[in-house]
């Protein structure tokens, strides 16, 4: 080859998964050149196409709400859509035909579902010996909890992160935003890429069994080790740090404006006291050393809080960073889309969707490549958008066969059971402050 190329050019991925973790893995694979086919059930929409997660474009479900959900377009970018019923014998047969012409299958069913359909890894590898399959479940395919249902929200409690999150003195707190799904996404991609490397070397496929519970536990070694070492557990302390003082969030000037800062060394503390125009605090025996500051946490916090209160987060951010102190404002989703650093790095990619969605910013990838052009190659698909072309071009089905598959609801151009749709009650969310603003002019802002 004469130039650097994307590693998944020419590879085909069948994505049977719903919600966040695995769909996002598959979307990220498409950024690297893979052809990803999302297989969706006509009678059961991906939750991200529906009301469960919203948000519909302009909060308007219109006539086809399943094609208007923003979250769907973020995690399913770059894919094609085949709306086909895998519970139906004919759907299973077509799926097997597709497996023979694909390289990777991704799913997040509980383990019993694919076994019931005869589409588990042991069956599929008979069709395609070099197949790589990844199954993501709450608890993995073995062990006493393997058949338990799970989703990120409840799993975060079980995996331990909830126990160590919360305001000082308060009960355990949900971290939210379906956090376990994202660590499962990153960890699943690890297993998957290792399997791809092995495939390229040996021609051998294999099965990657991801249990989210177990991998979540692996990302919180500190309390597991501390418990074994001396029998103690870290306590919940809000935004503070056991060793570094100050390391906390302080209210800054303006409505709901916050500044996070962490002082990691005594020299940084001295710099901070200069900035605060209270240099005497650097040599005050109550604050001079890290150990002293730990003993006087409340006093340190009060001093820093008083200084931050009358300054804007932006000024504080710039001044503190100019002095080498880790600091940052708390950004919201509007701030993030306008952040100069993320803009400079083109973290959000502008993707052109069919009308009425049009051009929208979509999260790219958390890494940059110098020599290879990883990018979002097309917008996420409308429901069943590629039914005909996939059946015709990949499997050679005739127009008559395709019509028959649609007539028997094996393949469908529309959801057969779209469920509830409806607008989000933004007014009451604003009242409750679970939304802090709704910008009508968000497209141009």
């Amino acid at each position, binding site marked *: 080859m004469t130039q650097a190329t994307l590693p998944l050019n020419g590879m085909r991925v069948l994505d049977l998964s719903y919600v966040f973790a695995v769909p996002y893995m598959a979307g990220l694979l498409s950024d690297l050149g893979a052809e990803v086919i999302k297989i969706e059930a006509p009678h059961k929409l991906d939750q991200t196409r529906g009301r469960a997660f919203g948000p519909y474009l302009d909060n308007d479900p219109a006539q086809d709400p399943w094609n208007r959900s923003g979250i769907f377009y973020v995690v399913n970018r770059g894919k094609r859509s085949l709306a086909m019923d895998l519970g139906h014998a004919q759907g299973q047969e077509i799926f097997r035909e597709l497996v023979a012409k694909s390289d990777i299958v991704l799913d997040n069913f509980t383990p019993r579902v694919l076994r019931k359909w005869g589409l588990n890894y042991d069956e599929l590898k008979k069709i395609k010996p070099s197949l790589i399959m990844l199954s993501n479940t709450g608890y993995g395919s073995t062990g006493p909890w393997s058949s338990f249902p799970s989703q990120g929200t409840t799993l975060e*409690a079980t995996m331990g992160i909830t126990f160590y999150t919360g305001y000082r003195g308060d009960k355990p707190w949900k971290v939210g935003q379906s956090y376990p799904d994202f660590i499962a996404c990153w960890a699943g991609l690890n297993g998957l890429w290792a399997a791809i490397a092995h495939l390229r070397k040996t021609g051998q496929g294999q099965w990657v069994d991801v249990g989210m519970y177990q991998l979540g536990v692996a990302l919180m070694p500190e309390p597991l080790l501390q418990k074994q070492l001396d029998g103690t557990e870290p306590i919940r302390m809000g935004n503070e740090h056991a060793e570094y003082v100050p390391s906390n969030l302080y209210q800054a000037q303006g409505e709901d404006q916050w500044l996070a*800062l962490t002082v990691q060394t005594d020299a940084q503390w001295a710099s901070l006291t200069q900035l605060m125009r209270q240099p005497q605090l650097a040599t005050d025996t109550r604050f001079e050393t890290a150990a002293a500051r730990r003993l006087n946490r409340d006093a340190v916090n009060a001093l820093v809080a008083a200084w931050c209160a009358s300054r804007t987060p932006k000024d504080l951010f710039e001044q503190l960073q100019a002095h080498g102190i880790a600091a940052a404002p708390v950004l919201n989703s509007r701030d993030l889309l306008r952040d100069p650093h993320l803009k400079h790095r083109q973290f959000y990619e502008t993707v052109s969707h069919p009308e009425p969605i049009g051009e929208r910013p979509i999260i790219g990838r958390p890494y940059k490549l110098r020599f290879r052009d990883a990018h979002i190659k097309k917008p996420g698909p409308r429901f069943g958008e590629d039914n005909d072309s996939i059946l015709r071009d990949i499997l050679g089905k005739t127009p008559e066969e395709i019509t028959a598959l649609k007539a028997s609801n094996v393949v469908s151009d529309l959801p057969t059971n779209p469920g509830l749709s409806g607008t989000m009650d933004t007014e009451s969310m604003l009242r409750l402050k679970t939304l802090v603003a709704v910008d009508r002019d968000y497209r141009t802002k």
Partner: protein
Amino acid sequence: MGNIYPDGALTGLRVLDLSHGIAGPFAARLLGDHGAEVIKIERPFMGDFARTLAPLKQDAPFPEQSLLFQYLNWNKRSLALDLRLAENKALIQTLVEQSDIVIESFRPGRLESWGLGVEQLLDWQPKLVITSVTNFGQTGPYAQYAASDLTLQALSGIMQISGQVDREPLKHGLSQSFYCAGLTAAYASIMAYTAAQADQFGEHVDVSIHECLASELVLNESYYAFLGAVQGRRAVVQDPFAGEPIATRKGYLAFQTGGGAPFETFAELFDRPEFLEKRFSSPPEREKRVAEVKALLEECVADRDAKEVFLAGAQKRLLLGVVQSAEDLLNCEHLKERQSFTELDHPSTQTQIRFPSELAKLSLTPTSVRRRSPKLDEHRDEILAQLRSRP
């Protein structure tokens, strides 16, 4: 130690780990877990600063006290080497020439200032993958900024939507930013290595910890990008079936709707017919009386233990979580059955500690822990001899 372990997916691959702290070393270790041979370069005398991270085993000699260092650095051999010194240049060149992947986490520009920039490394080894793991990436206005787990969670937007509306934003516990970035750096390294093997072009992978976190906010971002809505934190009183921990006699439970069982199954679980009624089973109806729903649920679990309710509910295919601490996790029957933990000797005392070790099961090439973390410079002679013997 070799024969008792089957080959990993990356057996035969060589990784040079120049990184320190959590994210970079975790990434290099993950490659080692898949079978790669990892040489860790540490600064002389002090070593990786992660050797000072808690929890510390006080009866062990410095710099061998940190159990966290142990967790982040198994499957590696250690060589202490000052990268800044010209006299070490030839040795560094040999190490790079014999590597497939280099992982580093210095402030952007630092390696280049020592004559070890990306161009130089690629000149020595054109198929090399260099993965840089830094707070804000190699470019952009924040590239040189300092950061901590807290400030990264602030600047990535995570904190804006975590916590309660009438209180301050709340960070995720522990040091999650760095583990998220370690996972990303590991898979991106294997990805770039796979690409380089195919087309013979090396790569520089620039991983930003900040962007790893911002990448997790797919819902939050689309609220704004598709509707102009800025999310806030959680309501003070919310539907208790949305995951907020509920206190039991012993421990906390998290409830969610939408598992494999209909909502009415809660009536069976608690022997309370109220859950069959529409005012509790319908989400919009529940929204109208969240305080009442919460009170009922609290009453149902007040005389029960969280773990017992979790098991009973999950067996009925309800979506339940149980808030578990380290002690619960260390004693969990499921993790035990899955053999999630590996017991290792401390490098310089004989204490055995159990570490969570497997992230995912690969059916053909399982991950393995083949050697404990190294003492500082433990493998100097072995590594130097090996370099001399290779062509």
